[in-house]
């Protein structure tokens, strides 16, 4: 978004884009899904069809819909070759019904064609909250609009997708198609897409079975191209009729045809019933291979893609000594004899069988080698995939062998790889592959699910799942080492629960127990327990121990090399929470800066959102407003919302900053955007925060009635740890304090008593100091000015080390006057001077409608000093005595004394040192001095 003051906006944008491009997609991409089938030399060029289908752009699409074996993919390939446009190919699988996975593959294949394209949609799929499909489709279309070239996107095997989320996306794209995109859908049956409109508009080219079936001429070309030796016109006609122009059957026939002897006899021997033709032909095709190649064919038919090494692994248990063929030999043979194999990459490393051929082979294998051996093949295949790091396929093969328990075990085996690298999307897709009832019966998997839910912010659900897991642990036999880890996980989630319930001591105990139980390689979970331990220690008031634990962790205790960045940013975040709740802005500043630098360079979006909110908090509270938007931009302007909770916090800081900069329209706009976002997530916690914040903005913009109507409805209970920037409860208290209407004082009184008790019990100084300041205002309004001063003094003393400015300024001029009358030490006076000086600048240039309370007192801060008094104040700062001052100004010491007394009274201080301190804070020595 333009409009931000930034020295080189374009350079920054480019740098950011470059960084995003290097980002990995949320799931591992199998590259071989992105290549079109290779054109075999014996192809019949479908000129007849190509002539009638012009792959045009501007909203046109092509539907290739026909049963298996009609050469759909081959035709699509010829189509894109003939069109001359760049093309992106994607062979779909049932797993691509997952919307995120589908989009990740679309991005991957588009990027294969145009490097680095689709930055918007790629950013969206990193998001923990997927936006509505309209927005996704819009982003995709915008991405395409930015491309200079035209692209044909082929979605092959579309019938394998069975999710309305994917269909909806394609529908949206087809509704308003980018001018430079042509979508080709290749499918065995018509997809549930709204194609009627395209059809009616003549924008849809349909290629169906009737068009794809070979004409006699095409059959002739094909047969003559493939069969060696003479073949009579009669035999060709017979082959054509018996196969009904079905290209796959013709190819089978060609493969089955005898190398010598009469082709005519062979043609006559093919059954005339089309349903028995393929079975008959397959038997003939296999009969022509050597027993060993036949053996390999039947066994590799269970692999959806294969390479030489994988084939060897799958065959290995079966009489290795009798194996004369190597994987490479086998690959060469099937490639050379055109046995329905399709190369999946440029290097011809990976192949797959043609689907129909694969089905026929499988049917044959079931009869020939039996179900038990097939299971073994699946298991050996899975083993190879696992050993080579293709975990998704390893799981899939186990599931095909009906080995759900083993599939679950495989996931558990690789849990640390996933969790230590925060690949939560991947874990989610794995868990979805398993049958739900098996998930519910396995404690290890339930625990993984609980952790996944925890990162998604679904607390209640996560705890329920955890309880299920815990109950199962007691009854299920399980390996001792694993049991320890599981118990550790239970404890670490439990300690989080206790912390959320504000029971610091119990949480500390649980967290320590978790760290005892968890093994060293369980990095993510140990990190989590460590963070809760630190936060819980802070809750008990033991900030020093909390910090020590985190410092130790940073200096190497339990942080392994490989994922050190992930963990060390987490540790910095924990330190940030401790410092925030301890009201230590000075400590928080470097913590947040260091963490944000790390998280930013390692693309840890979730950590970055938290750390940016810390940086924003420090700047806002120190009243360094000009820098806030710049600092928050990479979170608030990002499409990928890595963490909804902290995205919301950053939006809140941004809105408040606009408000206090006098841009009320932008403040309102951001607050409204936040509400809209919260409603979209359907997260009750976020919605409550957004509504409360709207009331805060209403209050600051002088719409008291609106704020009050919210405050009267809002239930502040149950109070839970306030570790983020914003607290709805404090807004509620503020509304009641600032409203002088009937009943508000009593409400304010009750709420503040409750809040102050709670915040003191959990040692949350950050919000305690604000609650105390509010109570001071309340007491002052009731005429109890001494009690008010006492309360405010406590607040100031708590806020002074962190140098909070805005907490007090935001409470309005009434507090300013109260501050001025406080009796404090020198440091305190200097600090209060700074706050009062801020009040004065605000009211000097405040726009009248942006002020908090209707009663603006012109006398905030200090009664102006006379010229002479200013002179004397300056000399007091130079540590001159009254006598020296009198000499310097050529007046009597008595007069000096009278002036100093006036100065002290005006500044509300006793004595010259206090006067100098306060004047320093007020900035009276800067400028004209």
């Amino acid at each position: 978004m333009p409009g931000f003051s930034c020295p080189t906006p374009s350079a920054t944008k480019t740098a950011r884009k470059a960084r995003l491009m290097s980002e990995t997609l949320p799931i591992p991409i199998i590259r071989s899904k992105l290549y079109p089938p290779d054109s075999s030399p014996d192809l019949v060029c479908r000129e007849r069809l190509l002539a009638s289908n012009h792959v045009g752009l501007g909203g046109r699409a092509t539907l290739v819909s026909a049963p298996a074996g009609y050469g759909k993919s081959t035709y699509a390939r010829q189509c894109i070759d003939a069109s001359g446009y760049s093309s992106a190919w994607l062979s779909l699988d049932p797993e691509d019904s997952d919307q995120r996975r589908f989009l990740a593959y679309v991005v991957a294949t588009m990027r294969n064609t145009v490097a680095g394209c689709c930055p918007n949609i790629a950013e969206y799929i990193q998001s923990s909250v997927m936006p509505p499909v309209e927005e996704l489709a819009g982003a995709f279309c915008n991405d395409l609009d930015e491309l200079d070239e035209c692209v044909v996107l082929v979605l092959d095997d579309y019938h394998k997708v069975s999710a309305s989320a994917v269909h909806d996306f394609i529908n949206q794209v087809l509704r308003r198609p980018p001018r430079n995109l042509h979508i080709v859908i290749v499918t065995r049956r018509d997809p549930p897409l709204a194609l009627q409109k395209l059809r009616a508009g003549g924008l849809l080219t349909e290629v169906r079975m009737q068009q794809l079936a070979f004409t006699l001429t095409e059959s002739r070309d094909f047969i003559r191209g493939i069969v060696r030796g003479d073949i009579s016109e009669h035999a060709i006609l017979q082959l054509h009729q018996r196969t009904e122009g079905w290209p796959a059957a013709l190819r089978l026939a060609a493969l089955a045809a005898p190398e010598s002897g009469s082709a005519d006899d062979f043609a006559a021997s093919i059954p005339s019933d089309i349903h028995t033709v393929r079975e008959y032909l397959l038997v003939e095709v296999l009969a022509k291979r050597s027993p060993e190649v036949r053996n390999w064919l039947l066994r590799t038919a269970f692999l959806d893609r294969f390479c030489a090494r994988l084939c060897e692994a799958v065959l290995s248990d079966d009489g290795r000594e009798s194996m004369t063929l190597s994987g490479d030999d086998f690959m060469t043979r099937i490639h050379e004899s055109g046995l329905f194999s399709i190369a999946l990459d440029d290097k011809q490393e990976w192949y797959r069988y043609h689907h129909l051929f694969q089905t026929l082979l499988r049917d044959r294998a079931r009869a020939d080698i039996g179900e038990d051996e097939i299971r073994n093949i699946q298991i050996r295949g899975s083993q190879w995939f696992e050993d080579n790091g293709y975990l998704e396929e390893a799981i899939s093969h186990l599931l095909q062998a009906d080995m759900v328990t083993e599939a679950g075990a495989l996931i558990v085996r690789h849990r640390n790889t996933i969790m230590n690298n925060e690949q939560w999307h991947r874990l989610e897709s794995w868990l979805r592959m398993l049958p739900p009832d098996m998930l519910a019966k396995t404690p290890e998997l339930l625990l993984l699910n609980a952790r996944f839910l925890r990162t998604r912010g679904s607390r209640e659900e996560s705890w329920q799942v955890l309880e299920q897991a815990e109950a199962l642990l007691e009854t299920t036999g399980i390996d001792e080492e694993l049991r320890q880890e599981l118990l550790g996980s239970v404890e670490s989630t439990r300690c989080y629960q206790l912390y959320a319930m504000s029971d610091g001591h119990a949480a500390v105990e649980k967290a320590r127990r978790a760290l005892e139980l968890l093994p060293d390689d369980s990095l993510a979970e140990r990190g989590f327990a460590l963070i809760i331990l630190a936060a819980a220690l802070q809750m008990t008031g033991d900030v020093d121990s909390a910090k020590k634990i985190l410092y130790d962790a940073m200096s190497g205790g339990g942080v392994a090399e490989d994922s050190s960045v992930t963990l060390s940013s987490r540790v910095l975040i924990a330190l940030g929470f401790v410092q925030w709740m301890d009201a230590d802005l000075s400590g928080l500043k470097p913590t947040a800066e260091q963490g944000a630098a790390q998280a930013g360079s390692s693309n840890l979006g979730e950590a970055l959102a938290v750390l940016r909110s810390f940086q924003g908090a420090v700047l806002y509270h120190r009243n360094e407003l000009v820098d806030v938007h710049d600092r928050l931009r990479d979170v608030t302007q990002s499409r990928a919302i890595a963490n909804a909770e902290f995205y919301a916090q950053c939006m809140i800081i941004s809105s408040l900053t606009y408000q206090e900069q006098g841009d009320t329209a932008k403040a309102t706009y951001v607050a409204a955007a936040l509400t809209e976002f919260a409603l979209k997530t359907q997260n009750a916690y976020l919605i409550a925060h957004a509504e409360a914040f709207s009331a805060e903005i209403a209050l600051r913009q002088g719409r008291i009635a609106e704020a009050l109507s919210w405050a009267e409805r809002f239930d502040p209970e149950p109070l839970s740890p306030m570790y983020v920037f914003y607290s709805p409860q404090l807004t509620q208290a503020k509304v009641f304090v600032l409203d002088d209407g009937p009943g508000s004082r009593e409400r304010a009184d009750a709420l503040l008593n409750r809040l102050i008790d709670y915040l003191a019990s959990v040692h949350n100084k950050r919000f305690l100091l604000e609650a105390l300041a509010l109570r001071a205002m309340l007491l002052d309004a009731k005429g109890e000015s001494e009690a008010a001063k006492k309360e405010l003094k406590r607040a100031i003393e708590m806020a002074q080390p962190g140098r909070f400015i805005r907490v007090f300024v935001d409470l309005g001029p009434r507090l300013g006057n109260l501050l001025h009358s406080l009796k404090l030490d020198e440091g305190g006076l200097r600090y209060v001077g700074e706050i009062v000086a801020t009040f004065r600048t605000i009211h000097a240039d405040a726009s009248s409608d942006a002020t908090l309370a209707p009663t603006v007192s012109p006398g905030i801060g200090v009664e102006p000093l006379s010229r002479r008094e200013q002179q004397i104040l300056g000399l007091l700062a130079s540590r001159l005595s009254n006598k020296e001052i009198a000499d310097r100004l050529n007046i009597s010491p008595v007069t000096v004394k009278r002036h100093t007394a006036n100065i002290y009274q005006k500044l509300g201080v006793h004595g010259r040192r206090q006067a100098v301190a306060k004047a320093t804070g007020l900035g009276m020595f800067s400028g004209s001095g």
Partner: protein
Amino acid sequence: MQGPAVYRVRVQGAVPLAWSSCLMGMNITVSNEDESTLVGRLLDQAALSGVLSALYEHQYPILSVECLEVG
């Protein structure tokens, strides 16, 4: 029988009328509370299979499929 034909498909449940465009433009009537009838001319078996599969995936149990007219 490989070419176009008019089909009538009956399913249990009320199919939203707006789905017509995603179901090859078949005409949908919801006869009573719990039954829908789809009638329309389909290009071939791939189209029919697409309609049946979409109904299956949206969990409408299929009661009958009839071919009313070939061509």
